């Protein structure tokens, strides 16, 4: 008996030794990789090179320890996948369970409401402004979620509709002095029209081809705005756009930012209600069916053309609306705000949050927009950490933070 236990212990020790060896190699690799930026520093004033060996030590120890965590997480994930395959994964994500239970649900919503209402009065104008931006991205994410998450149409040019909304407010305000509230529906309608315009030529395409065409469309809109000086004032953009008023009252800067914040809260709630109703409706189910299997979807009597157009147009409507708000918030727009990077960001929100899941998209938007802001403390490493978090998220939760859950029905019989 004693011998057996010793043998077991020995095997365990061997595994440990192997793991340590692996981690050691990882740490050497990382030290090598980060050597140029972490160790060498050229001091141009005294014209000497500083060798910061301490940094190398920190990187080495840090990566050595983190590699253990990494491997542990990978193992855990694999175990989770196995459980899911055998179909015995009764375990759902914590947040999902909380949402399903009514007694958690009500206090949670009340708490969130209190935080949302108190936020602009407790924090600075800067914080409120960041939060407003995050709320805008929530709505953009939810809009793109209709196209990408529900209907499964990979749209890389979503920012084009955002630009359409922003420019429609800026131009109508500049030329005709139209106010925010009258342009908001116009922006939505223009977004819708452009959605249909893009929808028609891409109806036959799917997957990668669709992605490339939408990417091209996004670039076309941006380039038109950049080069058609008579129409859009080119790269210099349009300044002095009116902030939203309230029945003719113009606010001070502080009040206007709080006003915009609550306006966005309202729009977010409205969007959540709409998307939630849509995804459990006849149209929403058709979108998901289209995503799952186009041929079968058509064979079951769903008009592919109409369904795709609806998804495109509806997604674009939301982008148009947020575009109007964006122009009103910044009071200055130029084509530089509507680059491909913006589309990629919104797409990341949807994918990172969880395709088709409303809560996931909200959390995704908050993380992706607020994180870079609050990481400013780390100055130089801000984008590095941001990128690392995105990579880690996709490795460990490829289905997004919150996977989409489908509605369940209860029957008495």
């Amino acid at each position, binding site marked *: 008996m004693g011998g057996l236990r010793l043998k077991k212990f020995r095997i365990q020790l061997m595994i440990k030794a192997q793991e340590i060896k692996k981690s050691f190699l990882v740490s050497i690799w990382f030290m090598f990789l980060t050597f140029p930026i972490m160790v060498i520093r050229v001091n141009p004033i005294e014209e000497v090179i500083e060798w910061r060996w301490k940094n190398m030590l920190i990187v080495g120890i840090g990566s050595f320890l983190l590699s253990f965590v990494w491997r542990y997480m990978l193992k855990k994930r694999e175990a989770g996948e196995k459980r899911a395959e055998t*179909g015995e994964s009764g375990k759902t994500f914590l947040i999902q369970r909380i949402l399903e239970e009514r007694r958690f649900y009500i206090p949670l919503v009340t708490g969130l409401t209190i935080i949302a209402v108190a936020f602009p009065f407790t924090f600075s104008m800067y914080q409120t402004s960041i939060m407003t931006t995050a709320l805008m991205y929530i709505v953009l994410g939810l809009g793109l979620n209709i196209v990408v998450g529900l209907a499964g149409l990979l749209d890389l040019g979503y920012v084009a509709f955002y630009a359409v909304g922003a420019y429609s407010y800026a131009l109508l305000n500049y030329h005709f002095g139209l106010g925010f509230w009258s342009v908001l529906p116009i922006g939505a309608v223009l977004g819708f029209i452009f959605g249909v315009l893009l929808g028609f030529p891409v109806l036959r395409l799917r997957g990668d081809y669709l992605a490339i065409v939408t990417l091209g469309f996004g670039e076309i809109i941006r380039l038109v705005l950049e080069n058609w000086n008579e129409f859009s004032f080119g790269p210099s953009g349009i300044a002095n756009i009116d902030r939203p008023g309230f029945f003719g009252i113009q606010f001070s800067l502080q009040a206007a930012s709080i006003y915009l914040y609550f306006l966005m809260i309202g729009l977010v709630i409205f969007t959540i209600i*709409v998307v939630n*109703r*849509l995804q459990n*409706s*006849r*149209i*929403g*189910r*058709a979108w*998901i*069916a289209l995503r*799952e*299997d186009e*041929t*079968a*979807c*058509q*064979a*079951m*009597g*769903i*008009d*592919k053309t109409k369904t795709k157009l*609806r998804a495109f147009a*509806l997604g674009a409507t939301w982008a148009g609306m947020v575009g109007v708000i964006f122009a009103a918030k910044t009071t200055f727009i130029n084509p530089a705000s509507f680059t491909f990077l913006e589309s990629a960001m919104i797409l990341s929100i949807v994918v990172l949050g969880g395709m088709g899941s409303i809560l996931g998209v909200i959390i995704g938007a908050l993380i992706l927009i607020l994180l870079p802001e609050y990481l400013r403390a780390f100055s130089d490493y801000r984008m590095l950490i941001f990128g690392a978090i995105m990579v880690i998220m996709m490795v460990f939760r490829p289905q997004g933070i919150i996977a*989409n859950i*489908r*509605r*369940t*029905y209860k*029957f008495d*019989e």
Partner: protein
Amino acid sequence: MPTYAALINLMNRIMNTILEVKNLSMNFGGLRALNHLDLNVVEGEIAAVIGPNGAGKTTFFNCITGIYNPTEGEILISPPGKKRKKINGLKPNRITKKGMARTFQNIRLFSNMTVLENVMIGRHCRTSSGIVSAILRGRSTIKEEKDVVDFSYNILKKTGISHLVNEFAKNLPYGAQRRLEIARAMATEPFLLLLDEPAAGMNPQETRELDELITRLRDEDNISILMIEHDMKLVMSLSDRIFVMDYGRKIAQGTPGDIINNPVVIKAYLGEDIDA
């Protein structure tokens, strides 16, 4: 021969032909997958299309359900109580709406939707609420939604998979997936159900249950069935008439008794007998 044509016409009127395929051909480049095919299905019958692999059976299904546009020929349907119509070149969804629903040989369920939702998709072409009514969710929309759920659940009960109602389609056992495909097609309220190898991959027990299910659908729901099937036992016990295809042609047609003894059919399946 005018008299012959008149006779066919008369017979059709008496027998109530619901699907008529005339002279159907389908070319893929230089390959002729269907070669002047004639076929008809009579109301209330279970008809089977059999033939060796590559005979063009699934191509035939794809032509009559609108996935392919046939090169030549006519496809006519006459739904019970309605006029005869040509459906060549119509889109699949239009044909489904006209009352011909199908299943697929390689199961094509919406895997990330629940069982009930899969069936509810079938109700799409029989309901009408759009974006605005979905957002407003008025009384009529709520009622329509409830009707869809109830209707779909009843179909699940009929097909014997109602206990799986909230499962994801991808997590279903194989036999249940086949049943769900039939349930989904049934939800479109077809007058003619097209089954593409419904028993493929099923064990004998499951096949027996399928036999019973198909008979029940015909008898209780008053729908006609046209199926492609390789399981000869099932074909012989179920079908009223059998069409045999080989190399894109129809080589024989008749009752199971006729077919089983037909030398042309035996030749197609087993090859030429050297002694004969």
